């Protein structure tokens, strides 16, 4: 019942917050406290979940099943390691978001807090759902609070931004729903565990894959359906950006690993050229776009698209290292880009502009802030000993075994990433202050340090000893890899991949005597 409790507690808290009595100020104060307390309880529950989790099995744990509209829409919950770690990410970031909004949000505070609580509930639900339609409900429903957060508490162009967000996601979700209907009809069950073991006909897999792809590609977001993300980030309040980058962007990756890979393994293996191709374009294209941004949030948003291309690249490497790397990348990016948005929020709260040119010289006036920003800049460019390196390294190592071309192109991301992030850092922290108001900004206060310090620790932990985070996911990922074994990989005219089937032992190296034979 722990999962149900974790899903329902924030809903109850949201109702309490929304109906608090008293004057505006009083209500706002109470709403903050209730929201923080609730998210902290959720965090503790999340940690408890982790300690109780059996890391040796890929089976769903903490399962519960309440037939609502049997057999097709059941309150059926359960988590494997992949879902567990994404729930951990959500409950870790949530209290930090509430703290980050403590003074920055002044308008309609109870409603704001209620929206965040509701979102937490829906996010946990998405990861805990074992019924495909229940998943769909949480998956799409989770976007509603985000629309509200952007649309009500957002910046000047918030309407345009949330409209764009809506339009993109709507398109994808309709196609996915149709595909789900067909699948449930075919398999006779909406249980994700059952569907993951169902062998759909190869031709059907192709269309189903594309229908799901439409939804997940938007959520990732993959190029070219990424243009909603920079606008959404720019207009969203700080905490909204954190959740958007930290958790909502992970829904696409979660969808790929939960649905696309195990349910459509043949199509996945046949269509890797599509995913690799888009990922390659995304890394180069969005990194170059990030290079010329003048708006901090836009820059980080574009860098997110590039990082998410590493996730898709890793997942479709279709081997252990690639998929594990993609999962670490999701967790790492959740921490690091969340923290980067928090860092932007810190100075936005002081100067009320996101324009890079308005800052400068912060290393003098805000030395603590400059140090923290340096840390996350380095984590973002994947410096070893931060989580970003483990992720990038595993993804690229995995991809290399599938396609050297794709790896080659994605690896250029480490050059471009360093260029735009270091240039951003130099313009913000080094040089001279752009104006007196910039110089007058106070350094981090205790609340801000309390928000950022836990993320620094988590990032280092994941970078130095990633085992703690990888261990729960290993059995679940091994099962996905097992589903993919023996599928025939696509052959692409440019030899983007060598033509072969996926097998545990890769026959990638040719002995001298047989060199000619094995080369197609």
């Amino acid at each position, binding site marked *: 019942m722990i999962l149900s409790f974790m899903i329902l507690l924030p809903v109850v808290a949201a109702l309490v917050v929304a109906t608090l009595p008293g004057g505006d100020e009083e209500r706002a104060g109470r709403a903050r406290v209730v929201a923080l307390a609730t998210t902290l309880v959720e965090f503790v529950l999340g940690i408890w979940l982790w300690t109780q989790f059996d890391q040796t099995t890929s089976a769903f744990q903490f399962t519960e099943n309440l037939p609502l509209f049997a057999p*097709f829409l059941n309150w059926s919950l359960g988590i494997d390691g992949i879902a567990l770690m994404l729930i951990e990410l959500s409950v870790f970031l949530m209290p930090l978001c509430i703290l980050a909004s403590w003074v920055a949000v002044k308008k309609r505070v109870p409603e704001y807090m209620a929206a965040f609580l509701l979102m937490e509930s829906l996010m946990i639900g998405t990861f805990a759902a074992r019924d495909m339609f229940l998943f769909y409900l949480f998956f799409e429903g989770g976007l509603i609070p985000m629309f509200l957060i952007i649309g009500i508490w957002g910046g000047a162009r918030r309407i345009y931004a949330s409209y764009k967000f809506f339009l993109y996601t709507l398109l994808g979700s309709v196609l996915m729903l149709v595909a789900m209907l067909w699948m449930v009809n075919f398999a006779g069950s909406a249980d994700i565990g059952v569907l993951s073991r169902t062998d759909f006909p190869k031709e059907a897999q192709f269309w189903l894959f594309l229908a799901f792809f439409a939804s997940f590609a938007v959520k990732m977001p993959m190029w070219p359906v990424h243009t909603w993300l920079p606008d959404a980030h720019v207009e969203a309040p700080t905490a909204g950006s954190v959740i958007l980058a930290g958790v909502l962007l992970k829904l696409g990756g979660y969808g790929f690993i939960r649905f696309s890979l195990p349910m459509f393994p043949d199509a996945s293996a046949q269509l890797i050229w599509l995913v690799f191709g888009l990922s390659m374009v995304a890394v180069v294209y969005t990194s170059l776009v990030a290079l010329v941004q003048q708006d901090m949030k836009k820059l980080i948003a574009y860098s997110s698209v590039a990082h998410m291309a590493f996730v898709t690249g890793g997942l479709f490497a279709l081997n252990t290292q690639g998929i594990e*790397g993609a999962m670490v990348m999701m967790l790492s990016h959740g921490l690091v880009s969340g923290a980067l948005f928090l860092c932007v929020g810190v100075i936005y709260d002081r100067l009320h502009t996101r324009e890079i040119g308005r800052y400068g010289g912060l290393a003098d006036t805000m030395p603590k802030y400059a140090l923290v920003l340096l840390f996350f800049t380095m984590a973002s460019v994947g410096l070893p000993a931060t989580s970003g390196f483990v992720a990038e390294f595993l993804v690229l190592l995995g991809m290399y075994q599938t396609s050297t071309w794709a790896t080659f192109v994605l690896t250029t991301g480490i050059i471009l990433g360093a260029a735009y992030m270091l240039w951003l850092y*130099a313009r913000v922290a080094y040089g001279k202050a752009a104006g007196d108001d910039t110089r007058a900004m106070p350094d981090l206060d205790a609340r801000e340090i309390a928000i950022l310090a836990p993320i620094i620790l988590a990032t280092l932990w994941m970078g130095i000893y990633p085992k703690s985070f990888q261990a729960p996911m290993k059995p679940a990922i091994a099962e996905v890899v097992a589903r993919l074994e023996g599928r025939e990989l696509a052959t692409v005219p440019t030899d983007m991949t060598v033509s072969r089937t996926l097998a545990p032992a890769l026959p990638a190296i040719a002995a001298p005597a047989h060199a000619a034979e094995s080369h197609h």
Partner: protein
Amino acid sequence: MIQLLVFLPLLTALVAGLGGRIIGHTAAKALTTGGLFVSAALAWVIFTGFWLNDTAGYTVPVLDWIESGGLNVKWALKVDTLTAVMLVVVTSVSALVHLYSWGYMEEDPSQSRFFAYLSLFTFAMLMLVTADNLVQMFFGWEGVGLASYLLIGFWYHKPSANAAAIKAFVVNRVGDFGFSLGIFGTFLVFGTVSLDAILAAVPQHSGQTFSFLGSQVDVMTCLCLLLFVGAMGKSAQLGLHTWLPDAMEGPTPVSALIHAATMVTAGVFMVCRLSPMFEASPTAQAVVCVIGACTALFAATVGMVQNDIKRVIAYSTCSQLGYMFFAAGSGAYGAAMFHLFTHAFFKALLFLGAGSVIHAMHHEQDMRFYGGLRKHIPITFWMMTIGTLALTGFFFTAGYYSKDAILEAAFASGTSHGMFAFFVGAFVAALTSFYSWRLVFLTFFGKPRWAASEHIQHAAHGDHGHGHDDHHSHAHDHAHDDGTAGYHPHESPLSMLIPLFVLGTGALLAGWVWHESFVGAEQGAGFWRGSLAFREHLMHAMHEVPAWVVYTPSVAFFLGLGLAWHVFLNKPSIPIWWQKEVPGLYQFLLRKWYFDELYDAIFVKPAQWLGRQFWTRGDQQTIDRFGPNGAADMVVVGAGLARRFQTGYVYSYALVMLIGLAAAAAWMMR
């Protein structure tokens, strides 16, 4: 012991960096410097064990790191002769540079940050040289890159320092790009990233081919070349060298430690560490050899005309790194390491000496404003002279042994690329002698030319913008026709001179003491004990080269010295005449063969142009126009709703979702 040696600098760096404001500058400096001297003492103990006794190599595991499928990477400290040599170089120079910085950075308001960065750098470098696998080596690789970035940009108010710091990091990332692909490929071929396992398995994979970028290529050649791209970035080899001269924006102690003695030699270390792999690919060796020789030539030609004292030494470093690489490419890894070892002493000495000159000259770095300094700062002068003698390979100095070994090995290797490297190297030896003595003559000899220097004028007229408050006693009111502007340079404090003495001793004696161990045909194999590929027959062949080969470096030394004496002391009008008569060649060299301009035109500018095109033409005018905006227009034309309500579309979205689900339910239950 090795754990303490490696992690003590990290600990002191963290305390000094994070707690510097609390414990104060002096405590932070004492802590970091003390820690480094402890590490250096331990390093010498370890090195002596490998040098005099038959200590066997060992590996100390620290922690599990990355495990995934067949990949198993651990944090571990590997110690063998090769590592021990590097430990001694890194910790000794670092300890001396820490000590030197007490004097050099005395007036800097962020001293504890500086010392923290120095110690952090040392830690990363130690992790690099003790790595037992390629990934940990990459950790050290990137860690020293970070420290280098922070230290080059230490004076972050200067835009030029920021630009140089970013350039250093990004250019190194280009090298890391190759290094990464090399690691991935190595794992694909060998199924492991552990150095011992890889090197042991080299014979069985030698000659195999694998598919890379769509073509079937030789495994060892491909991997070695990819890894070598990383080495080229870190060690500033031709093509990826552009960051090193700019890195001189950092404080001078940094140049001595990072950009002369240690970090830039990491590439050489890597090639030597992986020498069994390179031995398995003659093609890769040839490439290493030719690129090293070309770098040696390129950097020496540019170094001849630079006016900034630090830039001359920086190009000299670049050039000497070229020597190390062509030694490695000729198969003489011991000679490469030997030159790395001796070079660390004399090049750190030269940089710290230059720092002492700069300190005395009130931060003036342009040699055109020096002259006649040997009477004013005699100790610095003698130490710089020792460094120059060692660099130019004067008899029985450290550089004499190592440079001769390299040239003889290149000649004796019997390959065409080795022969090419020999002739280029011999020519470059003359250039080296020329530009090195040019530096000494311009700085210490002739008449003072300080009067035109802005820095000196500031100092002499009591303008203490630079905070050197000990200079005002030197300002006099009477006219100065002697070119000194009334300025009296003074010798550096003892904390800066002691490191010079120590390094000077090393620059004189290191070659004589250790040449039998490093490159001796009899003792060499016993000294290295398999930690690098040691070709005994090549070492023997070195002793059998013709006599003219043996005398070539000495001839080059005297040629360069004589020419420098002639044009800078005897007939100072010659350089000016030359600049006027062949301006094309002069500009070509002064502008460093136009590499920066070229890269700006083919990489930097197009990247920004493409970024802007993708953003405006791609995202805004194509994707958005035909995507969401197009759809929005249709909605507006058709109904004109949705956009008027703040959150109207949320309801419609929820509605669509629920209708969908209802349809699903209805369909299921039909």
